[in-house]
């Protein structure tokens, strides 16, 4: 039974991707499909990032080790959707105009922030195999604390895209703040003990 959970989580995490593929083939993305794809992939990145971050607190609260068994995979899915998000931007919006890409990264703060978050996720993804965990030793934990920086940058990236109603940024921002707060509270508590 327990063996089945991992493949199940894996398949579930691919559902948003499958739906997007289906909508592409059905030509069901609305009149501005590029915009739709970039919004969807961006939002799913943030969602997976938050789900991955919630695993450790959930383990502590429920005392179920099961949660942390999927943390790495969920984090890698955040990287997967972030890569799609970046690819949509590069392929469909910039159409491989590399100079324009460089300009955008340096000139537009929301892209600077979003791209930085992506680089962090990429670094975490590349150092996620067990070999790397062993190799980096103590530094691995330090490096992977950057995931919180990526989450905050992701929320800022979203906030700077929204124009009139900041509801979604408030929602995801509150979740990230909650997770970060729990983490801070927990480490403070365990230091005292």
């Amino acid at each position, binding site marked *: 039974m327990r063996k089945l959970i991992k493949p199940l989580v894996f398949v579930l995490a691919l559902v948003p991707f499958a739906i997007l593929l289906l909508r*592409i083939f059905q030509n069901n993305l609305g*009149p*501005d499909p590029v915009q739709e794809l970039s919004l969807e992939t961006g939002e799913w990145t943030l969602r997976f990032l938050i789900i991955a971050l919630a695993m450790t607190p959930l383990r502590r609260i429920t005392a179920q080790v099961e949660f942390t068994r999927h943390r790495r995979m969920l984090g890698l899915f955040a990287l997967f959707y972030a890569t799609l998000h970046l690819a949509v931007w590069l392929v469909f919006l910039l*159409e491989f105009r590399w100079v324009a890409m460089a300009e955008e990264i340096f000139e*537009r703060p929301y892209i600077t922030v979003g791209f930085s978050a992506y680089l962090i996720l990429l670094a975490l993804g590349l150092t996620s195999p067990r070999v790397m965990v062993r190799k980096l030793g103590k530094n691995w934990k330090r490096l992977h604390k950057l995931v919180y920086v990526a989450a905050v940058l992701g929320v800022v990236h979203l906030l700077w895209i929204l124009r009139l*109603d*900041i*509801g979604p940024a408030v929602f995801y921002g509150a979740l990230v703040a909650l997770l970060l707060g729990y983490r801070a509270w927990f480490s403070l508590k365990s230091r005292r003990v």
Partner: protein
Amino acid sequence: MLIKKPSDIKPSEITPESVYRNRRQFIGDGSKFLLGAAAASAMPSLANAQTGDSLKARAPVTMQRTPPAAWWADKFADIKPAPDSEPFYTGEALTPYEDVTQYNNFYEFGMNKGDPSSNSGSYKADPWSVEITGEVAKPGTYNLEDILKPHDLEERIYRLRCVEAWSMVIPWVGFPLADLIKRFEPTSKAKFVEFETLVDAETMPGIRSRFSIVDWPYREGLRMDEAMNPLTLMAVGVYGDYLPPQNGAPLRLIVPWKYGFKSIKAIVKINFRETMPNTTWVDLQSQEYGFYANVNPDVHHPRWRQDTERRLPQTLFSRSRIATRPFNGYGEQVASMYEGMDLSRYY
């Protein structure tokens, strides 16, 4: 085209209402003569025009709307078709009715493009009245029927360029704003026109959003000469049909050489004033949005480029990214109004 600045127009030059109201008689007298001289072969096309059958674009029959009130049907029975030449017409491919009416920015109904069409079910465009205030001889609150009564509706096919770098081509139905303004007899102090959108929290869910950073009502404005420009349209219809709520029913502005947000929807108030009004977007982000908001490929929005646009609808594998033109391609008609102005400063 010679377009005078508002300061150049003497109040005496503005057509008095009595003359204006009798213009049909005046036009009628002239056309009797013209018709007499014209060959009989010209008659069918004229008759055709009067029944409205020759409109360039019609909403799909299955999607046609019921009139907001009975008198609308009469009004719409007689729409003058768009001409065959610029600037009141463009031969560019029309954006389909479904996209024009389901991909909208109308934040009073929600933030996503599909929200205005799905969240406006309880919205009522009838009865409707418009308050006219400020520097005019004839202020007051006018019923929409009275506002529209003297105006003949015409079809105009315009490009619409959104500040978000997408664009559409849309067949509107309306009449020149200039004709409406003249009826209220603006005084010499009327240098700007300010517009306001309806605020009705009950039928507009976006207004109820707790995280909206807008100070409703939505406000927009034009300089008097911009408002009087022949391109500037008061629209009441789209695709030969009544405006749906999401497109700004029952009365909205269309200023085709400016970014779409200037073309304010669901107008309930028109105020004439001497000083430049504060507008919603300028109040929110003055570094990003200016009062003029003329379409300009050389002045980028701080958050995205403005030199190209996505012409909608697109599919993922046939994307038409086209170059954005100064004044959205209407420079010949409007550029003279901004002569001597630094357009990178007055964006």
